[in-house]
């Protein structure tokens, strides 16, 4: 697992993928937070990072599928998967190694945004006048959301040899789990308690809940279950040659 983890990390940073992902994320976030008048913190006159936490999931929606799309699709296409799965490794070890590597790349992209926290901290009047608890919770939420997207992306990649199909499928599934349940819950066919349940299946509900700065065990359990569910689905999908 450790060997796979480091190979994947090396693959990201010995090719352009790693740098492009981090670069695109930071440029987009920088523009949104500081430059574009509609979203900019400077124009809003409030010392918050709300824009970051509202926009980062939207960017992850297409960035994370781009990170995960090659994980299994490429290995299936070149045939290297055959060598990998016949080594003394369990399918879980392979999937976990790749999951952690992709997640690490996303964390690398996220780390520099801590700088924004210190900037806004200083810009507050008086300095330090911002909701640190809320921001901490939001970061935890964003990490869980990224991990869930990575798990979904890996699953999509394990379904096909075609990286473009893997990307589109992952982007769709991420979007579906992120916002679709929230939107579906507003359909008139769900009423009373059922619309709350439908809403709670989606990621957004739990992400918003964490953004309030409250790390609720129910949300943590939700994210962990979603991640494990998709990793397990990936393992099953890898084993389908045995069917």
């Amino acid at each position, binding site marked *: 697992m*450790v*060997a*796979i983890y*480091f*190979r994947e990390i*090396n*693959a990201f940073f*010995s*090719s352009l993928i790693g740098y492009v992902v981090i670069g695109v994320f930071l440029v987009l976030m920088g523009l949104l937070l500081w430059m574009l008048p509609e979203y900019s913190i400077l124009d809003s006159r409030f010392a918050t990072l709300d824009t970051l936490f509202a926009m980062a999931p939207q960017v992850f929606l297409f960035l994370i599928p781009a990170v995960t799309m090659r994980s299994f699709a490429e290995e299936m296409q*070149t*045939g*290297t998967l*055959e*060598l990998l*799965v*016949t*080594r*003394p*490794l*369990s399918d879980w070890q392979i999937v976990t190694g790749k999951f952690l590597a992709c997640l690490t790349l996303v964390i690398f992209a996220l780390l520099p945004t801590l700088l924004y926290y210190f900037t806004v901290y200083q810009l507050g009047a008086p300095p330090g006048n911002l909701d640190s608890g809320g921001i901490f919770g939001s970061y935890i939420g964003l990490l869980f959301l990224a991990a869930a997207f990575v798990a979904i992306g890996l699953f999509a990649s394990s379904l096909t040899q075609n990286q473009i199909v893997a990307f589109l499928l992952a982007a769709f599934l991420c979007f579906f789990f992120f916002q679709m349940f929230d939107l579906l819950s507003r359909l008139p066919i769900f009423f009373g308690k059922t619309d709350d349940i439908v809403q709670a299946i989606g990621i957004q509900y739990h992400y918003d809940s964490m953004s309030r700065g409250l790390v609720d065990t129910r949300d943590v359990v939700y994210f962990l279950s979603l991640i494990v569910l998709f990793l397990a689905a990936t393992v099953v999908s890898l084993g389908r*040659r*045995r069917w």
Partner: protein
Amino acid sequence: MSVQVSHLVKIYGAQRAVDEVTFEVQPGEVLGFLGPNGAGKTTTMKIITGFLPATSGTVKVCGYDVVAQPMEARACVGYLPEHNPLYRDMYVREYLEFVGGIHRLPNVRARVEEMIERTGLTSHRHKQIGELSKGYRQRVGLAQAMLHDPQVLILDEPTSGLDPNQIVEIRQIIKELGREKTVILSTHILAEVEAVCSRAIIIHRGRIVADDTIETLKSRMAGQSVVTVEFGQAVKSQQLSALPHVREVKALGGNRWQLVASADRDLRPIVSAFAAEHRLTLLELRKETLSVEEVFQQLTR
């Protein structure tokens, strides 16, 4: 007993890709897996490496069942799949160290250097795999299969697509390996089997049609022995077919004839006695040795 395959069956849809295949391979043996394309060679190898499950039957590698104890079984197998898949963006040493890491080898670096030297990759070790020529990539494929010093090596068409010099070099490596390890290699090049293997299994439509040493296979030829003879004078075909044990007479033109008898008969003394009796000059009298090609064609027709 390094590899034991018993009653292996693999069914794809309605097709029996592998049908009741049973064989054993010992250490120090290089087994050639021969057969036309689509005969079931690759499928059998994929089952031995644990990549595919069998429909029924069992495979044991170094005493471990590949289904019940997959980790132990996989640890003692080195595998070179068909088409030799490699990570093209990795460097030769980086890749081999990665493989060593998966197998948790102690002294990975030293072992990688040793393999690089043994497979003749020394001058290419700092190159990216994608930049290498096919022959060198094949060496990387062999190096990764041999890296963890496995007891059993499964090589699926190890020399396909190489130039004649490269083929000779790769065969040399395989031969050296075969002295202490168990090697199973598949090929449809018959000369390869004659050059490298001590034993051959011919499979056709998923079934084993022959399993023997190369020498026995050659002499087998579906139960026939053939003698070519040339006389100095004209002979009638009836005279020849009247000889004891002769089953078939073929005229080769001029005074040359080919006589066929059952495998356990040697026609040469009979023909020579016949020549002496009729005062014929014997210009040629030769027992045909058949190439593996002919045996192969006979068996897989």
